[in-house]
């Protein structure tokens, strides 16, 4: 900038009444008076207006014209308003902006700086003061007021967000309970309870969706119980409708209520507000699935970043610096932790010193093959058992309910639950043959239990599909029967009218109308029954397996030959993987069944709530911390991955049923339609303007769909290729860094050796 301009600026600023610049000057002065330590935080800047270079020629004297012109300009500026000064001083503005940004960054990150609290508070105070005073200066021209308003709203918004975060943190339940468990058992057991709490949150959202948008509207505005055939208990079942046994099976009154699909009427709109129930039912079903996918994916991607790289570079360092768990607050757990750390070190030292021990490879391979063979047999046997149980339950359904005992009625659910309970123990037994390192053995065990539960679930679904097809066949017969029945009724009514002459209204009590079979309600009932029996099995197992065993060990120890506490039965350890898998599979069943039984998320919420307290009590009361503490660092991602897989596998059957099977003709919100998703088309025709319907019809053109699918496939391929390329580049960089580090080490060693040699040489000479 020419020196003349500099001089002009200095003059003008002196006369200026602009607040911000004067404050800025003050700020500058203040800063210079501050303690020296603040200097290091901010870069030293030179203000160009203060620097008048000595090399520049002295300013020329102004002649009258230019002086008058300048004065005129200045007066104009003063009239327009002080803000316009910013237009001249672009560089100053830039500097101010940079400074403000820096201060804002400081405010945002001061919590993460490794300073003492006093220093942090002071820095924060100064930064906030600076920002407050100088923010207004950034406003340009006439928009200053609007800019200030925007700033104020932004600040209020930030404050609101902060308060909301605090509120959310205060609302998180069971924090103390989890803390107590964590301090006694360490972070691995507590991770199960954290997972349980997270599931509770997800289910709460599903429950709110289904309750408020499906169950409540039907209950408030739909036709009440008893008015139409689908909402009434049939005459034949009326006597036993309120029995506990019947209700426990979710038949009778429970079946003809908002809890199940069959109760809902297919009226397009209900109530004063014209609430579109069938549409809402369909969309809530899809929204539940969509929300679950989103939330699980989000949880998975949060954990991906934490993945460590290779495990071997810093083996000992990590063992030394990260093996102590700071969460432990219980002497016994601490003892266990110390022991396991010591053992860990000893093992690592052994590995370091000794080479590989050659074992009998062939024997081991044979044993492992044998173990896998047994496992396969077990899986096949359990699959067949379930199929057989489902077939038997179909037979029982044909018989008179009163002749069946409790076992026959609940056989299938009990079989599934018992299999889930005993097979893992069998797997554990077979794993003895294999002789793997505990971590690898754990992975195999988890994989096998997963295969078992998955197989069971799918056999169950297949059997269910069988029944559904049977019911759909039955529907055709029932439809024919109903037309016959109606014809008979009309004939009887006509004859009665002609006979008497008085026109008695044609009335048939809803309970007497013959019903079509409702396969959706049956599916919903099956899932609800399965969930309930699973819950009961779990709780009974805990009571008997953990609590009674603990009581036995504790009290019979006094009069027993060997020490029960350290010897055979002893106290149970908390089985993390088994419990997590059980939780995941239960959730899979909820996802499958909630479209057909809107009450299922509600039942699950109740179950998770009780589980939290019950298992929390059981773990503190009857279990002991694991003696051998090891955990796979990628455990959390593994469980979330399984959850995602189960979610995917659970929604497949539901989507298949929605898209391919015809809904029952006289129950549920989609009765009368050819397919369930037709409700969308119907809504588009009636409720949206016609041009929109036409546009959407054009959009659902198969050619367009194909094009979209093709674009998606190409995008996936491209993203995959990019990700692979980046991973390869990443590995390359890591290798380079390792090489560099090695080279540095060698070089330093040489230098150190050279120095030592020089010193020794110096000493000698």
């Amino acid at each position, binding site marked *: 900038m020419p020196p003349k301009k500099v001089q002009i600026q200095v003059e003008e600023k002196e006369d200026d009444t602009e607040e911000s610049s004067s404050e800025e000057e003050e700020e500058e002065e203040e800063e210079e008076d501050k303690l020296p330590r603040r200097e290091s935080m901010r870069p030293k800047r030179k203000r160009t207006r203060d620097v008048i270079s000595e090399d520049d020629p002295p300013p020329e004297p102004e002649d009258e014209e230019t002086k008058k012109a300048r004065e005129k300009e200045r007066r104009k500026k003063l009239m327009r308003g002080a803000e316009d000064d910013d237009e001249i001083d672009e560089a100053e503005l830039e500097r101010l902006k940079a400074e403000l940004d820096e201060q804002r960054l400081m405010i945002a990150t001061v919590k993460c700086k490794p300073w003492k609290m006093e220093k942090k508070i002071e820095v924060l105070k100064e930064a906030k003061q600076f920002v407050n005073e100088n923010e207004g200066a950034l406003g340009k021209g006439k928009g200053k007021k609007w800019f200030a308003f925007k700033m104020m709203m932004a600040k209020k918004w930030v404050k609101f967000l902060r308060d909301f975060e605090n509120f959310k943190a205060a609302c998180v339940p069971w924090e103390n309970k989890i803390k107590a468990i964590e301090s006694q058992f360490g972070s691995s057991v507590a991770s199960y309870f954290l997972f349980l709490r997270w599931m509770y949150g997800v289910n709460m959202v599903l429950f709110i969706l289904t309750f408020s948008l499906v169950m409540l509207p039907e209950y408030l505005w739909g036709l009440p119980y008893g008015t139409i055939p689908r909402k009434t208990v049939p005459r034949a079942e009326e006597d036993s409708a309120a029995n506990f046994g019947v209700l426990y099976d979710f038949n009778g009154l429970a079946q003809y209520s908002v809890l199940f699909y069959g109760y809902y009427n297919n009226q397009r709109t209900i109530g004063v507000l014209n609430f579109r129930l069938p549409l809402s039912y369909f969309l809530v079903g899809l929204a539940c699935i969509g929300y679950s996918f989103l939330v699980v994916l989000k949880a998975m991607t949060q954990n991906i970043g934490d993945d460590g790289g290779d495990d071997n570079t810093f083996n000992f360092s990590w063992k030394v610096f990260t093996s*102590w768990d700071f969460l432990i607050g219980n002497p016994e757990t601490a003892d266990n932790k110390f022991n396991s750390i010591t053992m860990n070190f000893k093992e690592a030292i052994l590995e370091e010193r000794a080479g590989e021990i050659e074992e009998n490879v062939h024997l081991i391979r044979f044993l492992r093959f044998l173990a896998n063979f047994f496992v396969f047999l077990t899986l096949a046997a359990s699959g067949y058992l379930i199929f057989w149980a489902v077939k038997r339950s179909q037979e029982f359904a044909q018989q008179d309910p009163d002749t069946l005992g409790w076992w026959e009625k609940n056989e299938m659910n009990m079989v599934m639950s018992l299999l889930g309970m005993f097979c893992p123990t069998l797997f554990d037994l077979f794993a003895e043959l294999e002789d793997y390192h505990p971590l690898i053995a754990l992975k195999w065990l988890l994989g096998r239990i997963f295969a078992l539960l998955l197989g069971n679930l799918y056999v169950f679904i297949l059997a269910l599909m069988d029944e559904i097809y049977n019911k759909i066949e039955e529907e055709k017969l029932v439809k024919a029967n109903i037309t016959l029945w109606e014809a008979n009724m009309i004939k009887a009514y006509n004859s009665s009218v002609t006979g008497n002459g008085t026109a008695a209204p044609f009335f048939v009590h809803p309970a007497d109308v013959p019903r079509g079979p409702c396969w959706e309600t049956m599916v919903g009932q099956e899932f609800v029954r399965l969930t309930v029996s699973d819950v009961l099995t779990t709780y009974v197992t805990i009571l008997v397996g953990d609590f009674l065993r603990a009581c036995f060990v504790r009290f019979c120890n006094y009069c027993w030959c060997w020490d029960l506490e350290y010897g055979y039965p002893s106290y149970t350890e908390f089985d993390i993987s088994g419990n997590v898998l059980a939780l995941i599979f239960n959730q899979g069943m909820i996802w499958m069944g909630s479209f057909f039984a809107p009450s299922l998320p509600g039942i699950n919420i109740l179950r998770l709530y009780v589980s939290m307290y019950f298992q929390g009590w059981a773990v503190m009361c009857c279990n002991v911390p694991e003696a051998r503490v090891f955990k796979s660092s990628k455990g959390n991602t593994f469980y979330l991955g399984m959850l995602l897989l189960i979610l995917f596998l659970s929604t497949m059957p539901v989507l298949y049923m929605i898209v391919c099977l015809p809904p029952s003709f006289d129950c549920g919100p989609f009765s009368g339609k050819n397919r369930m998703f037709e409700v969308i088309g119907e809504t588009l025709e009636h409720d949206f303007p016609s041009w929109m319907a036409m546009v959407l019809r054009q959009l659902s053109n198969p050619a367009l769909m194909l094009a979209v699918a093709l674009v998606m496939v190409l995008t996936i391929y491209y993203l995959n290729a990019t990700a692979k390329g980046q991973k390869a580049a990443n590995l390359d960089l890591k290798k380079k860094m390792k090489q560099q580090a090695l080279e540095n080490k060698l070089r330093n060693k040489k230098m150190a050796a050279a120095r030592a040699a020089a010193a020794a040489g110096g000493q000698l000479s």
Partner: protein
Amino acid sequence: MGNKQTVFTHEQLEAYQDNPFRQRIAQVFSEDGDGHMTLDNFLDMFSVMSEMAPRDLKAYYAFKIYDFNEDDYICMWDLEQTVTKLTRGELSAEEVSLVCEKVLDEADGDHDGRLSLDDFQNMILRAPDFLSTFHIRI
């Protein structure tokens, strides 16, 4: 915690008496390095050990905790102290020194026989367990 106390001694952190590094934690976070903490120090400690603290902040303080002689480097003696405290003296002296040598071998980048803050941070930030173990829940 106490009734209207402004200075907390490390004995009052009863729940963590089994922590082998309890004295070091108190020393690092206390006002004068003598183990007595004011409310501000207390807040500092929980802020660093909380779930939300960023990795480098935790790494910085972990370095200070493991630096027993407070010379801004983790030297051989510091490492020996750490390992002994971790195993409660169950390892023999030979094993302890082997472990310490291995650690220096792995993590010492400039090979000066001790870990500087950079070496330590470089090593600890890649550890998968670090965030979950260096954490106290309130």
